[in-house]
């Protein structure tokens, strides 16, 4: 990365905003696996492996997986957020590889939210 100027900061902000909002056309679904120490200790790595494996097996190209830090609710870890374009993000709690596979097949591919595993929809509000 080249050295940034203040203008660059603004440009990056706009560009990433677009990406994060899934509006660049190639990405339909963003899956965030929350991987702080607590998440990893309760099995986030295995959950991550499961979804990557599913993507490889099914060969889909419009699902992109990213990681993030702790969501704060450690007692419900591992947590996974699934955001499908133009829909509210869905947060799943107490995930494991099997649940992740089910969410992948049913929710990400077929659009059917797997209610029994859901913690909530939407995002936290930052005032």
């Amino acid at each position, binding site marked *: 990365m080249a050295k940034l100027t203040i203008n660059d900061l603004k440009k990056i902000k706009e560009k990433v905003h677009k990406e994060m909002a899934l509006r660049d056309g190639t990405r339909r679904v963003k899956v965030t696996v929350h991987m702080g*120490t607590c998440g990893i*200790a309760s099995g986030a790595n295995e959950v991550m492996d499961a979804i990557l494996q599913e993507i490889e097996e099914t060969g889909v190209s419009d699902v992109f997986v990213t990681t993030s830090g702790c969501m704060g609710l*450690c007692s419900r870890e591992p947590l996974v957020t699934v955001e499908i374009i133009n829909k509210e993000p869905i947060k799943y709690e107490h995930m494991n590889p099997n649940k992740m596979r089910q969410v992948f097949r049913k929710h990400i591919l077929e659009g059917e939210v797997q209610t029994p595993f859901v913690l909530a929809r939407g995002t936290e509000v930052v005032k």
Partner: protein
Amino acid sequence: MKSVDEELLKEFTPEQVAKLNEIINKYKNKPGGLIPVLEEAQVALEYLPLPVQKKIAEGLNLPLSRVYGVVTFYSFFCMTPRGKHTVRVCLGTACYVRGGKAIHETIQKQFGIEDGETTADRLFTLETVRCLGACGLGPVVVVDEDVHGRVKPGKVKEILSQYT
């Protein structure tokens, strides 16, 4: 200098000794380099017996007492060899209130070792730690790098049997 190296070679391989030299040289002229040297040396050599401390003292041009003082002050450093796996039971407050004490007792009983000791077969070293920051999962037992959360006394055997 020679005698120190000879002493070292009784316990460590030439590669390890070379690595130690490399670490010392890296931090030789850096102020405050002693602790990083000890940290890296422990990773390379697993433990820091007196010959290693002597070598470091000479290399960094510090009195041995200073090196020994630092080694004994910080809980991260150890002077005796360790088991193949380190079992660390968290006795931080959150784990303690959720039953960490019972887990600790179970392991002590099952392996016949006290805190800080290593099993006769050198497989496990038992330690207690103060809070690993995984309080949400208490009680927590960490084996090497693996964190096992919500451990119950009855599950200890099963968890440890995975490590051979």
